[in-house]
């Protein structure tokens, strides 16, 4: 249902304003529709997951088609960095064509890449640790970097650094750097293609949902990227001070880098923050207060201060954490919920933050059109009451039925009008 008589530019501004109104907690003209595509475009356009990972052209064309067909108010396209990952033999992911099941998107592989007794080494010189110890563990092709001497020792001698650099001549070292170069070339190609797609979609009247790189709660970075689940959870007991010190180190680095990479193009400039271990079952209230919330809150407040809009994705059930999110400044965040009871969330945080969610993926995959409409109606009536609501699904709708998605989109745009 193309909106007749409006130029793409008018539509762009209208959609953006609709979303901005929802985020600022004023009543928009209707509930904004944000289909969280994930790997939906594969099924929609008949792509294999392997093609989706490795062929930027096909992947972006497929997503473009979905977006043109569904006409969302804001959109986001998942990355498909298969070739870059392949070039450096990434160990932290499995994906189709690289050890992962053929019919699923890429999946994260938990692992311990910083050992319990290595916190001090990291804290003493993070960069040196990252280059000589961490990178060789997460990228197969960078193993030779283990053999580098201390980077500080290598270059602290001024002019002597020129001759110290003979360590880089070894063939294995050269191969390591070549793999990084190759990954970089692929990454740049994909980024340029993505940027062109964004430009094109923008010219067609579609605003992007997110303005910068994804960011993460400091605890999740330590747990997912460095210590592994087991390690991070044991550290809460055995070395809480080190765990906290590492998070303190990470937060400002992440904030500074993320803000620098964000293109502030509109009044929203949202940043996606997928949360992992903050969910209800994953830690106690006390553990959440000690290890999770301070870092996450610091991240969100830092982004707000920079004029950006944090959009944490609260994967799993965050019901018991809702009061913490009520501490945030009013009208500055989007809380994107998965299985948390949205009707309860509306009561507890509805006057502080815009709520996005939470059409069940099960309904979009195997429900009936009536079930989809019924659930949408309930969300719009209760959570959408007086604005402050963005319609989306409980996560990436990888395997959703295109017909049901269309029903969902149409119904939201029709019934979601504020009168």
């Amino acid at each position, binding site marked *: 249902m193309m909106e007749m008589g409006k130029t793409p530019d008018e539509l762009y501004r209208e959609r953006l304003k609709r979303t901005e109104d929802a985020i600022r907690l004023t009543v928009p003209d209707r509930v904004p529709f944000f289909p969280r595509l994930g790997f939906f475009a594969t099924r929609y356009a008949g792509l294999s997951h392997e093609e989706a990972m490795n062929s930027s052209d096909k992947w972006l064309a497929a997503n473009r088609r979905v977006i043109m067909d569904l006409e969302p108010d804001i959109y986001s396209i998942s990355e498909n960095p298969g070739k870059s990952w392949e070039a450096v033999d990434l160990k932290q992911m*499995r994906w189709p064509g690289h050890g*992962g*099941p053929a*019919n*699923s*998107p890429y*999946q994260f*592989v*938990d692992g311990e890449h910083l050992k319990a007794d290595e916190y001090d080494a990291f804290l003493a010189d993070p960069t040196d640790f990252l280059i000589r110890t961490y990178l060789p563990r997460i990228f197969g092709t960078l193993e030779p970097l283990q053999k580098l001497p201390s980077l500080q020792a290598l270059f602290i001698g001024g002019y002597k650094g020129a001759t110290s650099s003979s360590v880089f001549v070894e063939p294995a070292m050269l191969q390591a750097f070549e793999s990084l170069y190759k990954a970089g070339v692929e990454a740049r190609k994909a980024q340029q293609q993505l940027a062109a797609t964004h430009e094109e979609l923008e010219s067609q009247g579609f605003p992007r949902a997110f303005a910068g790189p994804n960011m993460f709660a400091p605890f999740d970075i330590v747990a997912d990227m460095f210590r592994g*689940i*087991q390690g991070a*959870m*044991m550290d*809460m*007991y*055995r070395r809480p001070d080190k765990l906290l010190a590492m998070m303190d180190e990470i937060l400002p680095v992440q904030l500074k880098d993320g803000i620098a990479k964000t293109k502030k193009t509109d009044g929203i400039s949202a940043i996606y923050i997928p949360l992992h271990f903050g969910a209800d*079952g*994953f*830690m*106690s209230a006390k*553990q959440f207060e000690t290890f999770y919330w301070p870092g996450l809150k610091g991240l969100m407040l830092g982004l707000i201060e920079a004029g950006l809009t944090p959009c944490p994705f609260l*994967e*799993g*059930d965050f019901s018991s954490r809702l009061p913490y999110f009520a501490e945030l400044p009013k009208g500055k965040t989007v809380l994107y919920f*998965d*299985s948390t009871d949205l009707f309860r969330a509306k009561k507890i945080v509805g006057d502080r933050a815009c709520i996005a969610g939470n059409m*069940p*993926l*099960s*309904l979009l*995959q*195997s*429900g009936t059109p009536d*079930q989809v409409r019924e659930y949408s109606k309930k969300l719009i009536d209760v959570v959408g009451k007086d604005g402050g609501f963005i319609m989306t699904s*409980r*996560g*990436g*709708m*990888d*395997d*959703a039925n295109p017909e049901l998605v269309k029903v969902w989109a149409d119904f939201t745009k029709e019934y979601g009008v504020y009168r």
Partner: protein
Amino acid sequence: MSKDLVAALSDLQEEEALIITRDRLDAGEAPLGVLADATRAMEIVGRRFADQEYFLPDLMYAGDILRQVTEIITPRLTTTVERNYLGTVVLGTVAGDIHNIGKDIVAFMLDVNGFKVYDLGVDVPPARFVEKIREVKPDMVGLSGLLTVAFQAMKETVDAIKAADLRSQVKIMIGGSQVDEQVMNFAGADAFCLDAMAGVSYAKQWVGGK
């Protein structure tokens, strides 16, 4: 120093639990008795998890202390331990999905609640479930999955169990943060669980007649 291993382990007092274990064995106590106390402690841990007094980190920490306690005891064991199980469960994350946390919690909770658990791991193809069901004749099967691709895989697994003529011999539960009644009906399972305690509760209900 208290000699109460049950209290030390269930209260997650790592050092104390290890010292008590060594002291009791050094004093000549039967290893099986010490092991039985460790098992009792883990039952308490499971109860506290069910009561939301303990959470995932506490469960993992308890598991890690138990691992060390068992490492101290095992070399001194002369007989094997016979446990009387309430029932048998074959458990795994379905094909296409490699998420393990939820499944591992369920395995832990079923174990401390008296079930024999065969954990097939992650990305388990339907044929592997069928093969294991034939081999160990479980009372029930648990299919875990977080991704939406798991819905279809759960259905295919149940279909494979049907095709192998084994469906009437097992109850099937599905679990994962995205599952609901809709997915349960779609897959053809008997129950869906959003947390491990729901799984334990169905498991107990299903073997109730025995």
